[in-house]
Structure formats: C-alpha cells, structure tokens
C-alpha cells in the first residue's frame, strides 16, 4: 500500500473526529472527537516517517501521544468541574462565551 492509503485513512478519521466535535452534544463526546482528530494526525506523521525513511516523525508521534493523554486528563477534569458548577455537560447549554 502506498502513502496515499494512509493519508486517506487519516483524513477519514480526522473528518469523523471533526464531525463528532461539531455535532456531539455531550462534552465527553467532543473530547472523544478531539482524540480521534489527534490520532489522525499521528497516523499522518507515522506514515510520512515511514515513507521518507526518517525517524523524526516517529519521535514526534510518541511525544504527541503523551501530550494527548495529558490533554484528555485535563479535558475530563474541566468537564467534571463544569458539571459541578453548571450541573450539565451538554455543550449547547454552555454558552458563557456569548457576547
């Protein structure tokens, strides 16, 4: 399989993740969507690294996975705090940014 197949897979996963982020009402679902998008990026990085014969992309991916974990932990913590304050985790009820 060529590089293109990996890239298409990554694009599809990224699209699914973006779709989830935009459409899910549940904040947890949004976080899951973000995870999907990040992993699509990881797939890209690994694919490029594999096909260009350089390890740098792999190293980046390892770092990205670590950061993703931290990000997920942070996100869940925020969600819990939000729930404590607002008694809801539904994203369309959270409109504090409204001008």
């Amino acid at each position, binding site marked *: 399989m060529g590089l293109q197949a990996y890239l298409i897979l990554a694009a599809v996963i990224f699209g699914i993740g*973006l779709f989830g*982020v*935009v*459409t*899910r009402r549940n904040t947890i679902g*949004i976080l899951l969507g973000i995870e999907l998008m990040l992993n699509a990026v990881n797939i890209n990085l690994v694919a490029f690294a594999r096909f260009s014969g350089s390890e740098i992309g792999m190293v980046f991916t390892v770092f990205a996975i670590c950061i993703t974990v931290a990000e997920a932990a942070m996100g869940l913590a925020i969600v819990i705090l939000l729930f404590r304050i607002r008694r809801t985790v539904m*994203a*369309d009820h*959270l*409109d*504090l*940014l*409204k*001008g």
Partner: protein
Amino acid sequence: MGSAFLTLIALLAPVAAFLVLAIVAPLRRAGRPGAYFSILGATGSLAAAVMAWRRYDEGATRLVWDWLPSQGRPLATIGVLVDETSTVMLVLVALVALLVQVYSLSYLSDEPPQGLGRYYTYQSLFAFSMMGLVLAPNLLQLFICWELVGLCSYLLIGYWYQKPEAARAAVKAFWTTKAGDVGLLIGIVMLWKVSGTFDFGEMRVMVAGNELPLAGLSIITFCIYLGAMGKSAQFPLHVWLPDAMEGPTPVSALIHAATMVTAGVYLLHRTSWLFALTPDVLVIVAWIGAFTALLAAVLACVQDDIKRVLAYSTVSQLGYMMAAIGAGFSTAGFFHLLTHGLFKALLFLGAGAVIHAVGSNDLSRMGGLARRMPQTAIVFIVGTLSLAGIPLFAGFLSKEEILGSVWAGGLVGPFALLMLVAFLTAFYMFRVVFLAFFGPAKAGHYDSHGHEPVVSGFSQTHQTHDAHHAAHHGDPPAPMLLPLWILALLSMAVGIYSTFIGPGLVAAPEGAEHAAPGWLTPAAVGVAVAGIALAWLTYQRGTINAASLASMFGPIRRAALAKFWIDDLFEGVFAAGALAFSRLVGWVDRYLVDGVLNVVSAWTVTTGDEMRSIQTGRAQDYVYGLAVGLLLLLVWARWSLP
C-alpha cells in the same frame, strides 16, 4: 563725523533711552526721572539730527550692514540712508518728538508715576521707530519700522486703557492700518520678486536702466499705495484717525498729526520714481487724495470736539499731500508734509493747552479764551493762519505748490476739489478760533462738577485738579508754552524764509519744476480769505446765523454728522459679514460634519447589534466555523495559487 554717522546717533539715542526705561523697571516706575531720561535721549537725537542736516551736502550716503545672509550676497541690509529727504524729515521727527516730550511733562503731570514712565517708554520707542522708517535704506527695514510705529500708535492711543473708548480706538487704529499694511507687505514681496532686491538704490538704478518689467507693476505700486492709504488715513481707511484722538493730546500732535500719519506720504515720496512708471495708479492716488481732502474738510466743519476738528483737518491735509504726489510732484507733497508737521503739531499742542485749561474738548464750552490765555491764543492763531494758507506763514507756500502741481499735472477735477477744500479749511479752522478764543466767555464752564467728565481720558484725580486749574484759567506753564512758541516761530520762520530767501526746505528734483499760472496765488489766498470771512461773519459778528447756515446745508450736515455712514458701513459689512460667515461655519459643523459622524456611528452600532447574534457562545459553533473557514481556504489555495 560724517552725516551718516550722525544720523545713526540720532537713531540710537531714543532706542537707548527706550531700552534703559524698558529694562530698568525702578527708573520707569519712578515717572519723572524716567521722563527726564527719555527727554535726554530725544535732545541728543535732535542735536545729532540737526548737525547731520547742516553737514549734509550733495549725494546720498549710506551706512549699512549686511543682514539676512543668503547664498552669495545678503538678502537685505540694515542701516541708514542719508539724503536730502531723510535728513530734513529726521529733523522734523526729532524736533516734534522732543517738543512733545517736554510738553507732556506738564500736560501729564497728574498721571501716576508708573503711567508716566510707561508713556515715556513708548515715546522713546516711537521716536526710534519713526527715525528708523525715515532713514530706512530698503523696503524691508522700512516695513519693520512701519509696523513698529503702528504698534507705538496703538500703545499710545490706548494709554488710558481703562477707558473703553480708548481701548476700542486703539484696536480700531491697529486693525484699520493693518488692513493697508497687508497690501504693503504683498507689494514689497511682489516687487522683490520682479526686481530681486529690497534696496531703494539698487531699485532706482534698475528703474533708470529700464530693467524693471512694466507688466504688473501697477498692481505692485497699488499694493504699496494701500499701505500708505492705511497709514496716512486715506478714504476709505481714514476712519481710525478721528477715533485715535482718544489718546493724550501730545500723542495726537506727534503721532497722529506730525509724523506717523505722514509715513504713507513719505513712502510714496521715497518711491516716487517707481510710481512714475505707473501713471494710472498715480491718477487713483490723486483722486482719492482730493476726495479724502474734501470729505474730511466737510466732516471737520460739523465737529464740536476741538481735537476732532484737528483730526479731520489732518486727514484733509494728508489728502492734499497725496493729491500732489498723484499729480507727479511728490516734492510738493513732501514740502507740505514738513510745514504741516510744524503747524499741525502746534495746533494740537495749542488745543491741548486749551483743553487743559477748560477741562473739556467741547467747543461749545469754550469762549473768550483769548483774554485769559493770550499767548496760547496767539500761537494757535499762527497755526491756524498757516493751515489756512495765508501768505508769510508756513502753510501758504506748500499749499500753493500743491495746488500748482495738481494743476500742472492736468488734474482739473482734483484741483477743483482742493480749491473747495482750501475754502473749507479756512472756514472750519477760524470757526474753532472764533468759538474758542473770542466771543463771550461761557460762565458755566469753570465748574466741571456739574458736567459729565468729558476731558479725553483724564483720570478722576485729574478732574478735581482741572477744576482747580480752571480757577485761574491762564496760559499754561512754561514746559507747555515753550514748545508752542518754538513751533509758532518756526512756522513763521519757514514761511518767511521760503517766501523771501530760499526755494523752500526741499529743492525740487530735476524736471519736477512746474510753472504755476499767475492767477493761482491770488485765487488760493482769495478762497482762504473768503473762508475766514464767512467764519468771521457767522461766528463772530453773527451777521449770518449759524443755525440757518447749517440748515442751508441740511442733508450734507446730517450726513457729515453721521460721518457719511462710513463707520456704520464698515461695522455693518464686517459685523454682518463675520456673523454670516460664522453662521455658515456653524451650519456646516452642526449639520454636515456632525451629520456624517452621527450616521457613521449609528451605522456602526446597528451593524454591531446585528453581528452579535452570530456569536452564540457555544464552542462547537466556533469549531464549525473554523473548519468551514479552513476548508474554504484550502479550496481557494487549490484553485487560485499556482
């Protein structure tokens, strides 16, 4: 010592006095010591001026320093230009300045010391500025001094600045002359543009060599004439001079009769070779001069304020001088300037003595003064005869020369006007003489308590002093009497000398001689005598009733009492014009500028309101927008970038 160096001393003596008085405040505030200091400067100035005049022999000499450095050669010089014209004018300025300063010692003896010090500081500055103007070797220095004398005039008219009329008159004088000065400045700059120099000598060489382009020169000379028109109170810019009488009488004698107002005549005489190139402008000068002379003479006939009669008389005589210059004989105008400087200063100082004694400017409150103050009466009559143009007095020859030159210039219209003015001059001056010095003494006028204080500008303390003075009502003290006698004797001496010995103080330049027709002298004297006779019959004998005489000239009299509505016209035009203009500006500001701003701000507010609804505050919408935007960018990048 050369005469150039002497004139420099004459110029610098008053400015030294001015600087000392201006810087050393205690001397100025002390009053009298400061006055003596200023008089010392004026005396030195007069001595140097007379020596320079006596030692002056043929050929103009210059003593100049470079000024305003520019590429190659200096743009202008500063210094003195000594020739026949400037030396004799210098003597006149220095003489009248000194006499007036001495006279003021007594006239203003009741002023507070600070006021007196201020007065003498201005006087010294004025003497310097006027001499700088007279001696200026180029138009630039002349213009600077021109503005300086205007400033001194403003300061001295407004000497009693607490009086609203005086303050208003000072401002009026300043602005009216300034209107002409703008023309003068434009003229000087335009002249510099075509000739490349400010210097009189260099310009004269260019004129002699026909190097000056004639095209457009009329505009330049007319602009220069505008300056002279403002300074020398020519119609329609004459309105400031009568109001300038709010200043102390010695100031009127020095600045508004003998010297500063003649600066315009002097300027035109100085540049007569330039004006000779533009005969069309000269004709305007002559007509305006003659018309001004007539207008002011008519106005002088109806004034009841002795100083205003003299003020209008000054305007009238300035018109005379201008008419002679317009006829192309500027020497005649300059000669009249000199004699007029002597006898008009004399008349003003005499009027000051009368005012001092009577405590009022009003002619109707004077009468029979000849018995109480005989010496004043004699010198005043000498001045009046001189002004009326009676033979053997100073004014006779100069006036006749002007009439002769206007006739020789072929200006029949102005000549007729001037003859009429000669009649009116004799009439209104002798009206003053008969009303003030002869006739019954007015019983009530000793007591100035019952009347409104009308003495121009005397402070409250002066009122009581005046009443005290009025009790003996005699001739004024020596510091006032001495200048009067000097001026009276000089007026007669000049007249007699010019008639029997010399050709006058100023020799006519080559080619400017004119043969006056033989009937001119009898005619000029005849109209003067007729004027005197009419005044005598009306105001002395009572053969002609003054009221019926007035009613004979009813409309003219009413118009003259209203100053021919010229002041009203100016006031109307400028006040209404300024109001209309400010209304227009206000409308533009209120409706155009504010309107545009209001529309823009309202539009901003509504647009902002509309745009708010896009901002839902939900993170998901933003992400959606972000994604769509990114997509659009990618599409755009794919299709539009190479």
